[in-house]
């Protein structure tokens, strides 16, 4: 009612909660930039940023209505939708045009190229897309996957495992490479992205529950545009973006964040564009590799093309 109307006559801002993809690291800096630069405020949205965890946990939070928007790994989200676990979300923009999942090892170690993984220990987040996609990747890259020893660990721990030599390589997001180099005491990393063989798959993207995309598409549109504005600014000013995030989250590391932003830049289109043809291709890839049952998904079931930037 009238109480909620501010004095200047503008309607009261929409209050929403937004979840980052993975705590407060470089790939998520744009949200704080959009916040700090007032893009959300200008769009009439009052955003509370919460730090997200794994894809599954974030989806649960969305399902429970405790958050309205999230930055999530699209491949992982679509696999879960295809398996019928949770379908009531739609992608409204892509942050990474390709999956950033990669095999990362240290220079001078036994693993220089993907084929070297045979007989070696490969660390990854349990049940993450990194593991799910590996068979497809291995087949295409000519690796005998039966000879690869998986080591399961939570994502935040992976760098320490590689740095301490407990594993020979990691399957993780390539944008973590700078942090890894720091952890490994300055050793260079060797990065082999899955996208070399699986170019159709997307990386992170903005998603929202259908209750928002269909019930309040205007809010979704305003949020999307403000967030993408933040993304554009971040790609142009990595240092400042990292510092803005550090101000809000003092435990964040500026150097590592700048490294991540720089590394992900080639994969980012600041328009957030999602191409229907490519989505269909991604779904086909997932089907072909038996990650989802055939015919379980259509592009429309995972992306709201009325909201997603298409050109």
């Amino acid at each position: 009612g009238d109480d909620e109307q501010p004095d200047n006559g503008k309607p009261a801002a929409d209050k929403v909660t937004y979840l980052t993809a993975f705590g407060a690291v470089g790939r998520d800096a744009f949200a704080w930039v959009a916040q700090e630069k007032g893009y959300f405020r200008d769009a009439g949205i009052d955003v509370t940023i919460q730090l997200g965890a794994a894809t599954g946990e974030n989806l649960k939070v969305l399902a429970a209505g405790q958050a309205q928007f999230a930055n999530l790994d699209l491949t992982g989200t679509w696999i879960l939708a295809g398996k019928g676990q949770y379908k009531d979300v739609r992608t409204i923009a892509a942050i990474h045009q390709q999956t950033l999942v990669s095999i990362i090892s240290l220079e001078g170690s036994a693993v220089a190229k993907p084929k070297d993984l045979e007989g070696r220990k490969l660390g990854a987040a349990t049940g993450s897309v990194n593991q799910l996609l590996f068979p497809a990747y291995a087949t295409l890259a000519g690796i005998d996957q039966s000879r690869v020893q998986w080591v399961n660990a939570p994502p935040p721990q992976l760098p320490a495992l590689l740095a301490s030599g407990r594993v020979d390589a990691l399957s993780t997001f390539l944008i973590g490479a700078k942090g890894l180099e720091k952890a490994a005491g300055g050793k260079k990393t060797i990065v082999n992205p899955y996208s070399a063989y699986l170019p159709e798959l997307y990386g992170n993207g903005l998603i929202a529950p259908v209750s928002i995309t269909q019930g309040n598409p205007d809010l979704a549109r305003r949020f999307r545009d403000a967030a993408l504005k933040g993304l554009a600014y971040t790609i142009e000013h990595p240092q400042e973006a990292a510092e803005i995030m550090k101000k809000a989250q003092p435990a964040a590391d500026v150097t590592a964040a700048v490294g991540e932003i720089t590394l992900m830049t080639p994969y980012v289109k600041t328009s957030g564009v999602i191409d229907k043809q490519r989505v269909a291709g991604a779904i086909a890839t997932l089907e072909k590799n038996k990650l989802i049952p055939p015919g379980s998904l259509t592009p429309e079931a995972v992306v709201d093309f009325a909201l997603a930037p298409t050109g």
Partner: protein
Amino acid sequence: MKAVALPIAGVLGTIAVWWAATVVFGIRQIILPAPPDIVAAFRAQPGYLLRETGATATETLTGFGLAVVAGLVVAVLLTAWRAVERAMLPVLVALNSIPKVALAPLLVVWLGFGSRPKVVLVVLICVFPVVVATMAGLTSTPAELGELSRSLSASPWQTYVKIRLPWALPQVFTGLKVAVTLAVIGAVVAEINNPGNGLGAVIVQSGMSLDTPLAFAAITLLAVLSTTLFYLVVALERWLVPWARAISG
């Protein structure tokens, strides 16, 4: 009869309330599955789940056993010399306060991926209650029994073995009851951090694939495991310290 009927009634009542809640509030399966979903998840792969339960149980029991021995020894040392207590108890408290969740990754880095870091984590998480409770028991010897043992010129060892430790037993068991449930949790935390096997790994995997009923099946098995171990400790207590009940009222 009653000894079995009442606990069963309690458990069934709890399950009924939970089931009713999922139905009445229309809670979605991925957030809180209803009991039948969980049963279905279990029946889909019973062999696998029981195998993982076995793995968790083994780690739990090994770690718990070590923690009991270590806890008793530490408590005896701390109560035997007041100076040792003064100097070391704060260190123990400080070490204990390191959240095990934060420590688990380091253990993997230090000790590798086998069951060793897991057993170590179990010990770390459940040794403290044993120490605190045993210390409390050892310092509660009634004055006249303390005088008895001193006046018999019992050696420190004899004082502990024949008087202070037996007297402390009921309180030691308080510590063991708390510790045994923590031991299970310790094993799970360790498995979550290196989810190769065990019910902790099942929880992580099912979290990733949003298979909440499977996670709850694992949690239910944990509850069963933990309750079983708790009542084994209770049975051991009844058997070892029948006199404690006899002298209280």
